[in-house]
């Protein structure tokens, strides 16, 4: 057992940390978020040049052969600046699906562009009725000659607006909640019959509702095997949960540290607020939640690298803890900042909102608690 990062990972950690410090102060983030794209294309190019976009992909696909631990290193630092660039949607989710299930020719076609930052992906899995259940899929894909015809609606799709291709989860056979019969398709974002309704999310990012009306997709665009897509879907979801949890841990670190600093500066009742024991204990609680989340993140990530199947239960536990503790830390950071905490002026509120969104993605604390108990 060894919790030390490799020298290479330490270098990446330092370079991402520096990038976030230099480029992601609150005002820059706010202006990027309300800008056309919703993020910075220059930043995205830098991330490609620094090799971060290629990190999780195999060397044969133009990547650097990294794993979930490398992604953790990046995402934790991203969480400290609430980075807007679509690393999760494009690299971890979209790219992850191709890495896990794409044919050689699909990988050859897409991954190099993904790694050099010229192409982007999105991953459309949720539907209105599905809530957090991955296997609940109504969107249909019907075989017609060499093609599949896709019909249905996908909800809360991240980064769809700027994606070149969207990995769409659809049902090729079976009932609404059967794991069997789910198939993943790589769909061109400009396909005829595909329409998007784009909107901002409360954390300053973007999402879309996607409608598919007789969208024709060639059978060679299937990612993985027909009817057997659930395994890839779950594996992508697990990687996304690990990445989101790492981001959340980074955000929680900022929240508890900012709170400690603020209470030392703010005076009420003729004392710095940090001298009041009740507030000290609350900050200790926040710190403890942060450390526990970090431990669970390390545990789930290391188990995933070793044996993804065996890690499933731990991943449910992780997402439960991240959801619950993330909101605990966020709510208390706001509380201890008093009125200032609920304004848009301090970064506290922005981090809190991101943690709220993270809890809603890939299953909230309740959902994963229930899943955990089924093992």
């Amino acid at each position: 057992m060894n919790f030390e990062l490799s020298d290479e990972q330490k270098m990446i950690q330092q370079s991402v940390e520096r990038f976030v410090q230099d480029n992601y102060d609150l005002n820059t983030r706010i202006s990027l978020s309300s800008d056309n794209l919703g993020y910075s294309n220059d930043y995205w190019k830098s991330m490609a040049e620094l090799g971060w976009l290629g990190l999780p992909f195999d060397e044969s696909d133009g990547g650097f052969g990294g794993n979930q631990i490398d992604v953790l290193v990046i995402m934790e630092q991203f969480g400290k600046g609430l980075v807007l660039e679509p690393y999760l949607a494009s690299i971890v989710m979209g790219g992850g699906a191709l890495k896990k299930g794409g044919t050689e020719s699909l990988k050859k076609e897409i991954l190099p562009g993904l790694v050099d930052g010229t192409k982007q992906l999105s991953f459309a899995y949720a539907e209105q009725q599905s809530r957090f259940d991955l296997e609940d899929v109504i969107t249909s894909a019907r075989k017609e000659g060499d093609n599949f015809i896709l019909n249905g609606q996908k909800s809360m799709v991240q980064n769809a607006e700027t994606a070149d291709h969207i990995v769409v989860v659809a049902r090729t056979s079976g009932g609404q909640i059967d794991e069997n019969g789910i198939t993943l398709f790589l769909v061109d974002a400009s396909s005829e019959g595909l329409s998007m309704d784009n909107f901002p999310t409360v954390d300053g990012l973007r999402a879309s509702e996607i409608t598919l009306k007789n969208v024709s997709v060639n059978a060679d665009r299937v990612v993985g095997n027909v009817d057997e897509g659930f395994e890839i879907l779950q594996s992508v979801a697990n990687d996304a949960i690990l990445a989101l949890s790492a981001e959340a841990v980074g955000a929680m670190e900022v929240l508890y540290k900012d709170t400690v600093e603020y209470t030392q500066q703010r005076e009420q009742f003729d004392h710095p607020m940090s001298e009041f024991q009740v507030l000290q204990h609350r900050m200790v609680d926040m710190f403890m939640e942060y450390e526990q989340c970090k431990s669970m993140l390390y545990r789930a990530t290391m188990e995933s690298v070793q044996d993804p199947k065996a890690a499933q239960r731990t991943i449910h536990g992780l997402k439960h803890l991240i959801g619950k503790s993330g909101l605990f830390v966020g709510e208390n950071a706001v509380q201890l900042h008093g009125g200032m905490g609920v304004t848009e002026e301090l970064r506290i509120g922005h981090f809190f909102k991101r943690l709220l969104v993270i809890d809603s993605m890939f299953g909230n604390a309740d959902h994963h608690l229930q899943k955990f108990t089924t093992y």
Partner: protein
Amino acid sequence: MDIELSSEDLTFTKEVRAFFEENKIKEGEDYFTWRNNWFEKAKEKGGWDVPKWPAKFGGPGWTPTQHYIWEQETTKATIPFDIPFGLGMLAPILMGYGNEEQQERFLPPIRERTVNWCQGYSEPGAGSDLANLKTKAVLSEDGTYYTVNGSKMWTTLAHVADWIFCLTRTDDSGIKQKGITFLLFPMKQEGIEVKPIITLGGAHTVNTVHFTDVKVPVENRIGEEGKGWTYAKGLLEHERTGLAGLSRSLFELENLKDLARTVTRGNSNLMNDSGYKAKIAELEIDLMATEYTELRSLASASAGGKLGPESSILKLKGTEIKQRIQKLTVEASGIYSPAWGEKSVGFPFAKGGTAGYLNSRYFTIYGGASEVQKDVIAKKVLGLTKGSSK
């Protein structure tokens, strides 16, 4: 002890219900015309337009049970909105400490809802430690007016208020609680600048207010110079009871259950999800208990004539309940809770639920933060001399 309502109370309940029923807003009716008429009719009933005012000042003089019945019924009826600052916060101070001239001048427009008030208490350096306020009021040499300079913060609805009741410092030589003076003055005048503070839910309800050489005639001072803190303290206890908002929570809890029923889960809905259902149940049990804590507090107030520090429990429990309702609304929205902006995405309640949750974080901060409320209980109820601080 007896939970049974007397026949008088039952008659009263029927009367209240009938009144609400008769005066419902009609289709196509202009809201503000209806609102004015509603208060007019309520006044004719014998002070029902100002339920909490004492009979001496034109209120109905109800028993605690009648107040409870009224609150219960308002959760089920459509009644016009009201802003609490004049009616519920300033009015009791005017009644208790204002002179006759002030009562005659200020109470009628409050009752008629023609003048909107805001509360100038908190400042950048005076939040939980309210007595630390620095806004200065200097009496003119001839003793006819004060000149006010300084800043107030978190001033709710200052941007729509006609008047402000304001705590100012007239003396800083002694302890902080002394030397505070309670002044009333119009908001729409030179020297007053109102700047919005946008809160996390994207709403503009609170403001920063700056005063530069604002002149306030001395007849607009409540009570004596330097005793404003004493007057405001009684009001704060009053405010804290009002902030519990239990009848509103009862309404919102039922509303939440209805929303959750629209979220399908397989062949059923979210209200049948074991985890979610359990959280709703826990919330409802807390709400039931808190309702009776409020009743007990009302009863002891009517017996002793004054709210005791036990009213602090109500603000703590009441605001926590309100926050939990908002949090469970976010949970009901599921994947749609992040949706923001102009459009409605997923569930119609999703965006409002998220905004409500974010804004609800304020409930445990304003009107005395929860930590301060607990200090009050520790000191005044449990007799712990140093409270939980230091």
